[in-house]
Structure formats: structure tokens, C-alpha cells
């Protein structure tokens, strides 16, 4: 399975009152992430596979592996649609 990473020109999320925001200067958008989304975003600074992101969520939040994979899949497709991540390599 392929890996994903930040789109060109994007940076680490900004934290405001325990919520995480990603700015996209190219599209002039602001995307709010919840805590687990913020964790995934931070990891995506480097290329990450969906499996590895799901493993991290299981480790950090003690959630069911299938739930983690479903969450990651939804998160990645949403972030792709917003132009925040791209396929790596």
C-alpha cells in the first residue's frame, strides 16, 4: 500500500486551545483537526502508510485495530480531497 505525506508548502499544525489547525496558503483554507487528527498530521511530515498511522492510533488511544484503520482511511481521503496531503514517492 502506498504512503502519504504533506503537500508542498504545508507546515506543522497550529495549536489553539488544545485544537489543531492546518493552514493551506495555496488554497487559503483553514482545517480544524481533532487530537488524533493532529497526531496523524504530525506523523505525515514524513511519508506514512495507512497501516502505520493506524498502529500509532492503537498504541496511543488503546482503540480497536479495525476502528483505527477505518478512522485513518476516512482521515486520509478527507485530507486528500482538501489538498493537504499527497501520495509520497
Amino acid at each position, binding site marked *: 500500500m502506498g504512503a502519504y505525506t504533506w503537500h508542498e508548502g504545508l507546515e506543522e499544525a497550529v495549536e489553539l486551545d488544545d485544537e489543531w489547525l492546518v493552514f493551506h496558503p495555496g488554497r*487559503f483554507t*483553514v482545517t*480544524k483537526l481533532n487530537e488524533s487528527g493532529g497526531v496523524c498530521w504530525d506523523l505525515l511530515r514524513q511519508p506514512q502508510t495507512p497501516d502505520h498511522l493506524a498502529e500509532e492510533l492503537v498504541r496511543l488511544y488503546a482503540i480497536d485495530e479495525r476502528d483505527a484503520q477505518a478512522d485513518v482511511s476516512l482521515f486520509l481521503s478527507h485530507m486528500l480531497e482538501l489538498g493537504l496531503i499527497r501520495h509520497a514517492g
Partner: protein
Amino acid sequence: MRMHAAYITIAAHTFRCRTDSRQVRELLVRRFGRGAPEADGAEEAACEPMRLVIHTGYGEPFAGYDVAVRRSARLVRYERRDYRISIDWTGGLTVIDVFDEFALRHALMNWYSAYIAAGAWGLLMHASCVVEDAEAQLFAGPSGAGKSTVARLSQPRPVLADEAAIVQPTDGGAMVYDSPFRSELEAPAVLQPPQRLGAIHLLRQSAEVRRERLARAAGMTELPGKVFYWAARPQDTARVLALTQQLVRRVPIYTLHFQKNDSFWEVIQDGRLHLA
């Protein structure tokens, strides 16, 4: 072709301007408050490095608000049916071609928003602004939300803007300047001093009158849509987002539910009493 010269001042910025139209020059002097440049080095030295040239007789009547943005190696261009703005950031020259006065007003707002973003100075916002007790209150929202209505209902309080507010984030908070970009209410003859920004209110017309404080992250997702900005160079867009973030960190943001009367001022004044 004879060119007519003037200085124009918007907020903290003064620009040297030339135009091929006497009527345009008169309009600029009337709205932006400066006359013919004297042979005075001090005036010239206080001007921004960006010079402005305005040509008339361009394009076709207004047909919609969509603006096309194009970039070449040297120029950034904004194009609408009734105006065209060409900015040479390196050479410090902007040429604005317009069809009529309506086009000129909009083109100047488009251009000024880009200018203050590029300088990381401030934001031009879809907002009216009214002053009470030496504090500015901003009322933001899209067309039809009630920005001009709120400004009209608030008279005789001083009005700094009725549709396009000029906001400068500062170390302690933010300042709002007297905006020459007015739709309904004429700007007062004498320029009003800038005021400290007390709060930003996102307008919701409603059967009830109340306001709710927004979390800062929610404010950060709401505010970019309230900024007059046409994304051109990514570095300028990054500056707009950074300025918006500064604003969100330093100024409280509320959702303001209001009726078409001035009772919302009681809610704002109540809120200020509780904070004091």
C-alpha cells in the same frame, strides 16, 4: 495624454497616484482626502514605495464579482470584466484600468487588500465597525448579513466602516482605521482616528438578541472567509493566514444574534461590564 496627480491616503498608507481622468482625480481627492502633490520633499518621503496609475475607458460594465488572478514572472494581475489590476511588486508600480467609478471602488479595495497583506501589515475585512467608549466593535458577515444595517442602527456612534473594515493586528491586540471604502453611509468629512478593537462579532439575524463567545480554533476557521482577499502569491496568502491567527489570539470573537434594532448594544455593553 495629460495625467492628473494626487496623493491618496488609506489608513496608515499614503500613495502617489496619477490618472488620465480629471473626474477620477476629483473622486480620489473627495474619498481619499489628499490633493495635488506640492513640490514638498516631506510629503513625497512619507509616501509608500508603491505608485499607482489609474486609466479609464477599460473593459465592460460590471457583470459579476468573480476575479481571475494571473501571475507572470514580473506581474500579478487581477481581472474582472470592468477592471484590471497589474501589480509590479519589484518595480513598485500598480496600474489599474477601470470601466467606471463602481469598478474603481472595487479595484482599489482589491488592490489595497493585496498591498497590506504583502506588507504583513493588516487585513481588509467584510465588516462594519462602530466605536463606543473609545473601543471599536467589528460586525462581520457575508453580503446580506446585516453589516451596513448594524452600522446604520448604531448611529450616532462613530462609524469607521460600513462594509470594508481596515484592521491592523498589533502587539497588544488590534487597531481599526477609518475606512474610505463605504457603500451606503458616506465617510465623515474629517478623518477619524484609529481605535483599539474590542471584539469581533459574527452576525446572525435572529428573533432573539444574544451573543456567544467562540473558541479560538472555531474563530480561526470562520475569519478567513470574512477577509477581502484574492489569493495570488502563496507567500501573501501565508501572511494573511498569519495575520488572521494574530487577530484570533488577541481579540475575542462572538456570534451575535440580533434583531433589526439597536438592542444588540445592550448585550455588548453587558459583556464589557462583566469583563471589567
